[in-house]
């Protein structure tokens, strides 16, 4: 039997996986190893699989992912800091036949946008909220966020977060799960292939819920911030498994069918 060369394998009919065309060719502005890139890609893959890219409007936040509209090759809006759920409410009410999602980090959603998030969830707006939680303000230089773990070091808590002085971390996902307007609330991660596949399924379910006008779906993705945490990407993922997951356990929190 003849030996198979790389040229035999690298043929279009043997293609298994390539970056989706819904991401632009622009290099992502994120740090090496950042979970934002993976999260962007799986959102776009879900839109491509559902064939709704021409009917989807995304809302970009303020934070590291402020330039999400540069990378996602769909219709995008960019909201003021924390106001993405309010803008998504307006977009969805004016265009009820469109799919609307927001893509927010923890500084945007859990700090300055807490009111907008909670009220959008409580009203049960028919949108999808994708919440990237890395426990830190990544864009501005690794300051303490509401989601920073107790004892976790950041540039504004150099000796670790002292809960007596700085308060307790905010579990947004558990909080919004209690509200009647949310239909699907889940927490996932994107650090291993298995978790990426699960997250993709969760995002798919969220968009399917929106198709059926069921209510608000909230997908939290626990992610790393290796620059803010001062680690290399692989160490940051290991640190995330050891420290973030016990406090932010993965899995579905609320599933209403």
């Amino acid at each position, binding site marked *: 039997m003849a030996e198979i060369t790389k040229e035999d394998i690298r043929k279009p009919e*043997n293609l*298994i996986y390539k970056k989706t065309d819904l991401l632009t060719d622009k290099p*992502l502005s994120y740090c090496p190893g950042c979970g*934002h*890139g993976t999260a962007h890609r799986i959102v776009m893959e879900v839109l491509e699989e559902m064939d709704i890219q021409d009917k989807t409007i995304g809302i970009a936040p303020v934070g590291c992912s402020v330039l999400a509209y540069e990378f996602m090759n769909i219709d995008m809006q960019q909201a003021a800091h924390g106001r993405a759920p309010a803008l998504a409410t307006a977009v969805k009410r004016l265009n009820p036949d469109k799919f609307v999602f927001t893509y927010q980090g923890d500084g945007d959603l859990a700090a300055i946008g807490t009111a907008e998030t909670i009220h959008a969830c409580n009203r049960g707006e028919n949108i999808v909220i994708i919440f990237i939680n890395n426990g830190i303000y990544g864009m501005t230089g690794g300051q303490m966020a509401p989601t920073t773990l107790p004892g976790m070091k950041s540039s504004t808590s150099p000796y670790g977060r002292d809960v007596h002085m700085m308060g307790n971390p905010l579990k947004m996902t558990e909080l919004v799960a209690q509200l009647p307007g949310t239909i699907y609330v889940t927490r996932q991660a994107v650090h291993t292939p298995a978790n990426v596949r699960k997250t993709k399924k969760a995002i798919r379910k969220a968009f399917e819920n929106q198709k059926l006008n069921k209510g608000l779906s909230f997908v939290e993705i626990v992610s790393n911030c290796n620059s803010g945490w001062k680690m290399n990407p692989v160490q940051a993922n290991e640190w995330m498994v050891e420290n973030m997951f016990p406090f932010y356990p993965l899995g579905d929190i609320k599933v209403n069918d």
Partner: protein
Amino acid sequence: MAKVKGDIVIDIEKCKGCGVCIPACPNDVIALSKNVNGKGYNYAETVNEECIGCANCAIVCPDGVITVYRKKIE
């Protein structure tokens, strides 16, 4: 003999050398190069022929620089 054979193509100019793909690979096909790309990152490269085309590396790659091919061997 393996029943499937895979191959990956890495866009080395877009690779940021984060190394997240390396623990994801079941057959240790990927390693960081000693050379750097135009941006100064030690890009990922294939170091052996054991690839089975599982696409794990491409799925975890934050920058989506890996393209995966797989061929069945009769």
